[in-house]
């Protein structure tokens, strides 16, 4: 028996929990992941002290891939200032899916920056088609994100299980292409119906 992990990142409200919920066989679980003493969002531990803590919540789900392999999906905590926690979240992952919303592209910039500069895992960007319609050409999205050519860009509506499975498959395919370079791995811009 073994487990694998794919991280789903992106800005606030971009559909991370929706994506996890669409494919997870359990309802997405929310866990308080880490506490930090240095934060601006403050819960006083004790009225008499200056010590403060913040809890950061994170959603995750699971997919049984075969009789001896479980895939866990972890949504990242939204704000970029929790990056040190992302390191912990991403460690040992097969890959990452960065979700973007073309109506609010900036909200996913920190996630794109993180995977481009600070992470070691294969990743790709997925435009969430909220109503199943493309608002922008993928080439424009790629340009707006300054996405390097070797990072795949896909688009799908993450409310549907099949679509999320295809997006996760694209992440695994991308990792596979890097781990075992071969001829069957040359897609850059794919749109799933």
């Amino acid at each position, binding site marked *: *028996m*073994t*487990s*694998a*992990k794919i991280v789903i990142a992106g800005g606030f409200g971009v559909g991370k929990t929706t994506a996890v919920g669409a*494919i997870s066989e359990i309802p997405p*679980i*929310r*866990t*308080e*992941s*880490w*506490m930090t003493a240095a934060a601006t969002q403050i819960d006083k531990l004790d009225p008499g002290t200056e010590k403060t803590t913040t*809890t950061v919540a994170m959603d*995750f789900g*699971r*997919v049984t*891939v*075969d009789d*001896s*392999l*479980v*895939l*866990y999906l*972890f949504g990242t905590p939204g704000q970029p200032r929790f990056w040190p926690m992302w390191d*912990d*979240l991403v*460690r*040992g*992952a*097969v*890959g990452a899916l960065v979700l973007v919303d073309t109506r609010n592209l900036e909200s996913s910039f920190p996630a794109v920056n993180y995977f481009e500069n600070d992470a*070691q*895992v*294969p990743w790709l960007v997925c435009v969430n088609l909220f109503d199943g319609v493309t608002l922008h050409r993928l080439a424009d999205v790629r340009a707006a994100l300054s996405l390097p050519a070797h990072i795949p860009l896909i688009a799908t509506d993450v409310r549907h*299980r*099949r679509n999320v*499975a*295809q997006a*996760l*498959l694209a992440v*695994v*395919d991308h*990792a*596979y292409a*890097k*781990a*075992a370079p071969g001829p069957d791995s040359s897609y850059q811009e794919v749109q799933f119906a």
Partner: protein
Amino acid sequence: MATHPGYARHWKVRPYMRAASGRVGTGRRPLLIHTLVSTGGRFDPMLAATLAPATRRLYEAARTMCSVAELSAHCGLSLGVTRVLVSDLLKTNELILHDDRPTDVRPSNDVALLERLRAGLRKLT
């Protein structure tokens, strides 16, 4: 407290205890948030009764195999605390870790793992 030969106990010597937990991680395999653990079908109610409340909750929840993240959520403990307590239980073999992957290959480079994932995910598309 261990008394070393040659070091007689003196009333001025502060007795100390070494905490059960050392550093997180069991050495061979890192304890990641998605790492699967369980009691391996050897749940011991007598042992459970002797454990501290949080550890006991984790030990009981691990009767069904699940990930560190699931244990954290089920037991209402933060991931950091869960990881330390689970790592204690692994050291004393009260819990076992489930991972049949080679230790020296990163998951993102593990071709066999990626092939299993591809096959499984294709069935869902």
